[in-house]
């Protein structure tokens, strides 16, 4: 099976994000990491490769420094890595990002599965997987919690999707686009992988390489606008100790308070 795993470089989840008056988001000197949701996709892709053979190619769109994230993916076991980088990509929204990613998947050719995290921990829009599936014209299996079976010869896959209401079992033909929930324990990079990653020359594909015109990418092609960016107001926390003679009385007061606050 040939799998493409899409990774994004994001600030560490422990980073302290700040937004200044002009709406610029900063994470200080916190390290950049592979989007944790994508790590589940990497791990699952590697398991599929180990089971069925084939290759896993990691692709990211971002600045040159995003090669770090690709190296991490290779160190974990991915076979190839490609950086999609072009100054013209700057300001692309989720749909345009999907256009660029779809062009890269098509350029690779003979891809059975595109896998990525359900969302990135920085943008959190979760729009790229559906937009990409639409661009490729492949079925979307979003929020996958488990792969039940894969039949590479019969060109089909059965997965469990994790929905708010429960789990949904879905069968789809291949190729397909999958987005991963917390579905495994991602492996650490191996020393062999680290050695390979450190020496690997990572190719850069530009808009021209992908056959995309300048007006198809970047801010100009994007429909989404960001009129204002601001930090959410800090929730006000009040602490109240409920006292009473007996557990029953305390419970009754608590229920009354919860009703009064319209929690119940």
């Amino acid at each position, binding site marked *: 099976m040939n799998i493409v795993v899409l990774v994004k470089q994001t600030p560490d989840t422990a980073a302290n994000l700040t937004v200044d008056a002009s709406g610029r988001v900063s994470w200080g000197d916190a390290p950049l990491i592979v989007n944790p949701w994508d790590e589940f996709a990497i791990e699952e892709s590697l398991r599929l490769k180990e089971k069925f053979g084939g290759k896993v190619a990691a692709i990211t769109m971002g600045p040159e420094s995003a090669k770090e994230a690709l*190296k991490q993916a290779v160190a974990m076991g991915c076979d190839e890595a490609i950086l999609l980088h072009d100054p013209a990509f700057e300001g692309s929204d989720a749909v345009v990002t999907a256009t660029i990613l779809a062009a890269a998947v098509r350029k690779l050719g003979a891809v059975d599965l595109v896998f990525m995290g359900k969302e990135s921990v920085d943008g959190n829009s979760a729009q790229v997987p559906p937009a990409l599936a639409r661009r490729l014209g492949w079925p979307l299996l979003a929020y996958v919690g488990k792969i039940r079976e894969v039949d590479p010869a019969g060109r089909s896959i059965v997965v469990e999707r994790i929905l708010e209401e429960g789990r949904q079992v879905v069968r789809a033909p291949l190729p397909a686009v999958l987005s991963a929930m917390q579905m495994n324990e991602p492996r650490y*990079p191996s*020393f*062999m992988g680290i050695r390979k990653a*450190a020496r690997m020359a990572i190719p850069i594909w530009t808009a021209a390489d992908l056959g995309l015109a300048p007006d198809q990418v970047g801010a100009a092609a994007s429909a989404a606008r960001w009129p204002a960016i601001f930090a959410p107001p800090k929730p006000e926390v009040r602490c109240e100790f409920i006292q009473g003679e007996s557990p029953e009385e305390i419970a009754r007061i608590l229920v009354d308070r919860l009703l009064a606050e319209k929690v119940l």
Partner: protein
Amino acid sequence: MDFRLNDEHRMVQQMVREFAEREVRPVIQEHDRAQKPIPWLFERMAALGLLGICIPVKYGGAGMDYISLGLACEELERVDSSLRVVMSVHVALNSLSLLQWGTEEQKQRYLVPQARGEKIAAYALTEPGAGSDAAAIRTTARRQGDVYLLNGEKTWISLADLADHFLVIAKTDPEKGHRGMSAFIVERTFPGVKTGTIHGKLGVRAGNTGWIVFENTPVPAENRLGEEGEGFYIAMAALDNGRYTVAAGATGLIRACLEASVQYANQRTTFGKRIGEHQLVQEMIAKMAANYEIARLLYLRAGWMKNMGLRNTRETSLAKWFATEAAVQAALDAIQIHGAYGYSDEYDVERYLRNAKGEVIYEGTSQIHTLIQAEYALGYRRDRPLRCELPAYDPEVWRAEPAPA
């Protein structure tokens, strides 16, 4: 001159950091309190390749360089010293000695399973009556035909109860002092080998430390490492590697103290401001930050010298001496910054202090290192070439696959 770590080093650092943080940090306090080693530790370290990190691939290792060994030690000891101790004895003191002095047969038989983590290895020099004065050891190895009969007692041996292989230093010719010592590879299963645990240590309580007794233990002559009479030099060369890992580890301990102190100093308030804004607290933080950088540069230089195949006894001793003394001070100050909370085992810093104190004693006390440094400076001490030097790191050689059998 390039002070940056390369991609490989940074990835090693991150991988080891994640392992230690994710898997060991949540359970270490409990094991430290109970004085019980983490039962799955060797298995996990082996699976990650850590137990053969800087051993060539053809000998079962991961084929990384000596700087990677140091970085791994720093990250491990940032979480707990007992993790780094495994690297010190298994990788540095034992496995690297086999790489340096071993015959091809000895490497195949002992180094390969050790580098793969299938067998655990320890180093046995210290005795009840001989620590800093290594030439005063009393364990004897008497040649009798094809074997040496080993008799004596070793103590303060890390992993004594858990190791499969021991590198044992014994006297083959007691009349000749340090020139009458030889090194032997001893398997736990050899007759007359007994081990036991030392309980009640101040620190490294999640690590196993113990004693070994040899009673007429027959050691095949082919298990002698190096020549007869070379044991002292082998023991000292091993310490050049062991001390390197202690230096790197202690550097990680300083960082652990610094990180804990910075976090606490930014949370705790007294007299209406964060305690980090008080100048006397800042002084302690500044010293930790400076000592961390100094210790790090010193061990990385020693690691670089190992990579280049340069003798580094002096530089490694300096790195070990400085980093361990600074680690004790950093831990003391970290407790001071944490106030009464730091005095309790609810926080990590008291464990850091207990662990740090051992480091100014083992692998050459601070006093021994002071003398070594003075002797080098005064011109009283010079390194003589060894019959076998630690091989310089050559990526091509280290990464070559073994020839098919």
